[in-house]
């Protein structure tokens, strides 16, 4: 039986959410910004805002200069998270396998559920209507055999629901602009695509028809590119619990390069990760620490957590932080991406080895398990 994947997209999610909250914004040029500070960036822009010359990624200071009439709204992540959670709970009623892919975007595995909803189109229509009725947000839905085509469909097709019939994927993609294909965004591929002026997917399709030529031009990217322009994608829709990553991120209240502040943030972050690792009784072979600076630059370093006690995790995290933090600039975000899990090798202790710190840590874990991680904060005492 062939797969059926829905991709539900609430276009301009943040803008829709704001306009839902304040109807007077409906016809005005608005832009969602990361912060009111002049070095903040524009995250999302309404059509009216675009006409004023605003675009995403633009500095807030420049946006202010360019358009005096546009309303610049700060990123209200609490509101977006709440709305997103609400939409998530709605779509979960239709299938148990839902994979959120950012605010206002969901993959839904609808394989075998056609009979229940009469047809996929009807199911799609129902989902869309319920989201509209209950949350007040407009959505579009892409339906196809795989995640890639469904996602592209929901991104480019103006219709509320569009289904790409199995076997028609390549035909569907061929007239579209090349950047809809994910691999095209890889720097070496993009360089060539731009050079050859391959503005449409069909032009890439004609090149990849001959695998030798494709390999010569695109090297290691030839295979994924070929699959994507033909509309092939074998990845499965996965629910969040199945994910093999722990992703912890801290956005500093104020951008800083002050080591004392950064130390306490790292401490908090590493404790959180250590707690999660202990919950899973796992250690991680792949740890990636990412630092996002105020000016958008990103530096990273890689290591591993061979134990999951607080001190080991903190020491390693701090080491990774010091390697990654090669600049003087102020830091906005620190992110820890942990994967490559494996179980901790358990060995009986012959002698009593519990230290005071271990016992305290165990006690804290119990409290945190019961009342959430943030119920207890550690602090530096000087």
């Amino acid at each position, binding site marked *: 039986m062939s797969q059926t994947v829905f991709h539900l997209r609430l276009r301009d999610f943040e803008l829709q959410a704001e306009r839902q909250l304040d109807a007077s914004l409906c016809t005005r040029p608005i832009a969602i910004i990361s912060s009111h*500070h*002049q*070095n903040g960036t524009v995250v999302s822009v309404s059509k009216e805002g*675009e*006409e*004023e*010359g605003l675009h995403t990624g633009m*500095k807030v*200071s*420049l946006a*202010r*200069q*360019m358009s005096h009439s546009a309303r610049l709204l700060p990123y209200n992540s609490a509101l977006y998270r709440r709305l997103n959670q609400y939409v998530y709970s709605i779509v979960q009623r239709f299938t148990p396998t839902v994979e959120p892919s950012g605010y206002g975007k969901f993959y839904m595995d609808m394989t075998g559920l056609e009979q229940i909803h009469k047809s996929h189109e009807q199911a799609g229509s129902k989902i869309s209507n319920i989201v509209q009725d209950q949350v007040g947000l407009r959505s579009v839905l892409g339906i196809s055999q795989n995640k890639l085509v469904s996602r592209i469909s929901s991104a480019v097709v103006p219709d509320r629901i569009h289904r790409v019939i199995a076997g028609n994927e390549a*035909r*569907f993609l*061929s*007239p*579209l602009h090349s950047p809809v294909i994910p691999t095209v965004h890889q720097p070496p591929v993009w*360089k*060539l695509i731009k*050079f*050859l*002026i391959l*503005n*449409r997917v*069909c*032009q890439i399709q*004609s*090149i990849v*028809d*001959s695998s030798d*030529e494709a390999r*010569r*031009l695109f090297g290691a990217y030839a295979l994924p590119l070929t699959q994507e322009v033909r509309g092939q994608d074998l990845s499965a829709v996965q629910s969040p619990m199945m994910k093999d990553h722990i992703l912890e991120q801290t956005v500093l209240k104020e*951008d*800083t*390069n*002050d*080591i*004392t502040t950064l130390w306490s943030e790292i401490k908090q972050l590493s404790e959180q990760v250590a707690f999660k690792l202990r919950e899973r009784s796992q250690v991680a072979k792949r740890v990636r620490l990412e630092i996002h*600076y*105020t*000016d958008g630059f990103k530096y990273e370093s890689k290591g591993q957590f061979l134990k999951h006690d607080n001190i080991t995790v903190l020491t390693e995290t701090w080491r990774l932080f010091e390697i990654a933090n090669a600049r*003087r*600039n*102020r*830091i906005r975000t620190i992110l820890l991406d942990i994967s490559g899990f494996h179980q901790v090798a358990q060995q009986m202790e012959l002698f009593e080895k519990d230290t005071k710190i271990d016992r305290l840590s165990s006690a804290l874990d119990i409290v945190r398990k019961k009342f959430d991680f943030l119920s207890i904060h550690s602090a530096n005492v000087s």
Partner: protein
Amino acid sequence: MQGTASQPSLLTAARNQGMRHIAFTETNGLWGFIRFVQHAYAAEVEPIAGVNLITEQGEAVLLAENQNGYENISRIVSAIHDKPIQSIVDILKDYTVGLFVLAHERSTLSSLSKIIPNSHLFVELRPGVTERAAQQLSREFKLEIVATGDVYFIRREDWHTHRILRAIDLNTTLSKLPSDTYKSGKHWFRAEKDMVRIFPNSLEAINNTIYLAEGCKRDWSFVNTIFPYLSLKDTYQANRILKEKVKAGAHKRYKKITAQIQDRINYELYLITSKGFAPYFLVVEDIVRQTRNTIGRGSGAASIVSYCLFITQVDPIEYNLQFERFIHPDRNNMPDIDVDFPWDERDDILDYVFKKYGNERTGMVCSQVFMKPRSAIREVAKVYGLSNEEIKSITKRIGWYTSRRDLLNWVKTDPRFEHIQLDDTLEEILRESQKVIGAFRHPSVHPGGVVIVPDEIRKYVPVLKTPKGIQIVEWEKDQVEDSGLLKIDILGNRSLAVVRDTIKQINLYYGGFALKNKYLDYHKIQPIGDQKTAMLMQMGKTMGVFYIESPATRQLLAKAGKVDFEHIVIYSSIIRPAANRFTNIMLERIHGKPWDILHPDLNFLKESYGIMVYEEQVSMAARVMAGMNYAEADALRKTMSRDSMQHLVQGWKKKFCKGAKKRGYKENLIEDVWSMIQSFVGYSFCKPHSASFAMLSFTCAYLKAHFPAEFLAAVISNQGGFYSSYAYLSEARRFGIQILPPDVNYSWEKHIGRKSKIRMGFMSIRNLQEKTVKEILDERKARPFTSLNDFFVRINPDLSDAMAMTNAGCFYALAPELTHQEIAYRAAWYCLGGKNEVPNSIILDLAKNDITSEFQYSRQDCLSVEDKHRLEIESFGFPISNHPLEPYLSMINGRVRKAKNLFQYIGRTIHLAGVYITRKEATTVKKHEPMEFLTLEDETDIYECVLFPETFQKYGDLLLWENLFIIRGKVEESFGVISVTIEKLGSLPKMFRLNQSTDPQWGQK
């Protein structure tokens, strides 16, 4: 980047505390020694030369006992620049004579006590060293103790600024600054009583400080110029050779040696030889002889001797240039001969000088870079972790030469900064930036100053090597001059290279290169009096012409209408920031307004419409009105023209006014004359210098008038002009010249002009590697490329180069049957390892792509206008196949007027569209409010605009990010020249977006 105290503040503090001597011991350097001596004498404090020697293996303070000691300090500092990691003993062992050495570490004292006698070695008691430890060392080594302040900042509260300076120097943040890299808060300037308070049991050590100071050298004088040859025999020989060379040169320069010429030569030679300057002239002549296209500038251009030696190009007799500004019987200090060379030949000339005189005797003059408002904010902000974008949001509104120090207040109140949100961090940064302004940041190489000494350069001044291996002295040009060292300015000049390249090109096509038949010769061009040249200047069409190409000068030329040599000399001198008011007065007088000189005694102003335009007129006014002698009047002139001496201006004003009053001149006359003198502040020329420049301006204008393609191609190729390459290409189009894109078979590295065409060079292509260009040019010598295949087989460029060349259109002529896309595909195919021809099937498929679909999109078989525009901008930075306004013409035609018709709309308010060409920020005379002069261009002509303060405040920010404008403004006329006073300024792309439902995405900057 250690101490926060400036020399004057340190000396003021010392004088206020009643100190009679002060030792200025920089860390491993004598960077500001000459300046320190000058400031110290002005503050009536006796200066002591010294250095704080700090290496990883120890620390010691060295003080000069006598001249030998100074020379040894200079050698020691040079040695430490050569090899920073070595022990103090290793550095000092050969240079101990004439030095007092102070140290506070046991290991250092232990090793130094073996090579320095007790009478010259002391235990240093400084803040941070305990009295007990010092006494212990004193007993152990049997040495006396000397107390020192080890001062790094004047006030205790400056310690934070000291840490910021260290963080800037070490490229780190305050929280990451290692504690051993900065001083504790104890190192502030202490009075004697404060020293007694911290060292109560060491009164003897404090007294010893005074005894030691009395034993150091304190009488410094730098009167005698140090020439490359010193012996009597050498000087005699030099005098003889100079006379012979001048005689021979005079016969080449003049058809007939008249009595006037001979008298002038004799007079000059008498002065030159009697003052011992002959070797200097010979050195300069020897250097100038190495190339053909040179121009002597500065006061030296007034010398007939320089003219006969081919150092300068202006005949001082014909143009009435006074020799006394150059060498006066009463002048003791060095005469200046600055020589300009084509910028790309300058390095060869310097190599020649270094080879001839050797590293032991030669060094380039240093350029000391100090923190200015812009750099101070930038560096301090980096310490606080601000990003480049954030820093630029402030610094881009600050001019490079701004001298404001009250930064916080300025940013808070000036309308230019009204969009900046000042938070606590930013306020702190600005507050701290104010404090670090003036701190010495780093040395760099002066553009052309070379010092040559008779024996060993290291004994006069410390030398060091730059990262590129050039030997420089520690002092910048003013200190070098004031120290009496011989400095020759070998400056790079782009316009000389332009003239050279243009003449070369003209000779190639017009003269018959093979026959070596020169059509033009640099020394034989006669531009003055040429009708076509004069017309070009009168119309202000001097873009690309040396020194008179800025919008202000072009307008001045057009307004004045008089463009003979004498007037161009005046214009070259009067175009300076502080003289705007006088420019307008002069224009009125040129156009017939009756005028008279201010006073019969100021008759020398007659040649410049009664206005002071040349430096020597300042000296003459000071002598005539205030009764100053030659030296004083010259010092006043020097003070006015040097930025570093502006603090002395008020003193000179008082002296001038007092002297003039005493001699019976009326107060309003004194005020008027002083206001003219004041317009020379920071930037001014002497007449010979202006005449030299004017001669080069005339030569350039002549070449542009007669050979515009060759000339403008050379201007673009030599880069660095007042305008962008785009602006020069537009100018070429206005001269009816066709611009041809680069081509693998016809382009050279530089742009080449020929008759009515300019072929763009490979240098115009972004991201194209030099080695590939070289390879193409070498390979092409054998035979031209015949096909794409031939090119890629013979050159084998990497993909990036192939992309750059394809996008720039270099292969169009090689494969006229292929579309751009097909050429691109073949280029990629060859570069990615395809040995065979590209499969035709793929090429055909690329063009086909007619898959039917439920979504209908237009098929693009060939390069669309948008793609072409994009590729040109990516390749060259600007479009070449059409004007940047082209995409908008359909929308704006009929609504806006054209620049070429502006004369029809004088007095009317109209709309215009324009592309940014250049701009200049200025301030209003009365209120010092910011305003802007803007030069724009539409597809028909270039035009000048003004944004007065109110408009500038409203729309000034738009100029920071937009290049295509739509304006509404009033057309005004002044002395027959049109300008537009902008009332409203808007972004053209933005207007386009509002008018269109789809974004064209090609209204590029």
